[in-house]
């Protein structure tokens, strides 16, 4: 069955703020194998002009995926997660996230459309400090394989 179009424009607020910590940044930098000391050494980061260690550019996917998860688990959205693949990803930065940031994420269902037999589901997440500063915006486009085709089959059998 196709994704519920009534959900276009729906907004999800993160249930609680996310605290960016040195330890989590180090864990993430280690996981992507990036030895840049600006991610792990506060003195290096300060010498580079930052208040504290900064997070790698793809770190905000943690918050963006949480936002996407809030939408995806809603059964009335009718999104078959077992058929989902990550299609596109984009980030637009005001500045890097850094240790000490406390951020909230506002995720909007920005687009739902059929293409070929698939459906494309786009989520835009604005990640702001609790003080209101926009730090980074994430766009996730998910491809739901066969979503549109299955809907046509459903309509066909109903007709």
């Amino acid at each position: 069955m196709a994704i519920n179009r009534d959900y276009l424009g729906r907004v999800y607020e993160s249930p609680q703020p996310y605290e960016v910590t040195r330890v989590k940044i180090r864990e993430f930098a280690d996981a992507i194998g990036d030895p840049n000391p600006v991610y792990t050494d506060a003195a290096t980061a300060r010498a580079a002009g930052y208040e504290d260690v900064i997070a790698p550019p793809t770190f905000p996917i943690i918050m963006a995926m949480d936002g996407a998860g809030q939408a995806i688990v809603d059964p009335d959205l009718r999104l078959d997660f077992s058929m989902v693949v990550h299609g596109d990803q984009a980030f637009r930065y005001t500045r890097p996230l850094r240790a000490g940031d406390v951020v909230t994420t506002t995720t909007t269902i920005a687009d739902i459309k059929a293409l070929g037999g698939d459906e494309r589901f786009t989520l835009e997440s604005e990640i702001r400090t609790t003080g209101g500063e926009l730090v980074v915006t994430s766009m996730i486009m998910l491809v739901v394989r066969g979503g549109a085709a299955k809907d046509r089959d459903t309509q066909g059998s109903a007709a």
Partner: protein
Amino acid sequence: MTATVRYADVEVGTELPEQVYPVRRVDLIRYAGASGDFNPIHWNERFAKSVGLPDVIAHGMFSMAEAGRLVTDWTGDPGALAEYSVRFSAPVIVPDDDKGAEITVSGVVKQKLDDNRVRVDLTARSNGAKVLVRAIAIVRLA
């Protein structure tokens, strides 16, 4: 901090040196833990094959992170990145051996923009397939 590469020293066509990033099963386990993405297609061969994949595949975001390193290592300042976007075009297939797979990343300055910014187009390949397309970084140079 500002980038160590100067806008004036860069031309359309300037190439970023190619890098090869290894990816083994253990890297995917570690990335799953760090990112919170525990989709079993990234660590469970039985599950991956049951949904039609040839084997366990890397997280798309892992490939995006590796390709991004080419840019942040080139500019010298990860904070110089203004925009970064990719399309995931093929999976990185990671076999269950000690060698794993490789992601080969190259880049070229495609356009000089205002405000000392340049557009870098990235290419990422693994096992002969283009794993990222439309991979574009906008960076602010010194």
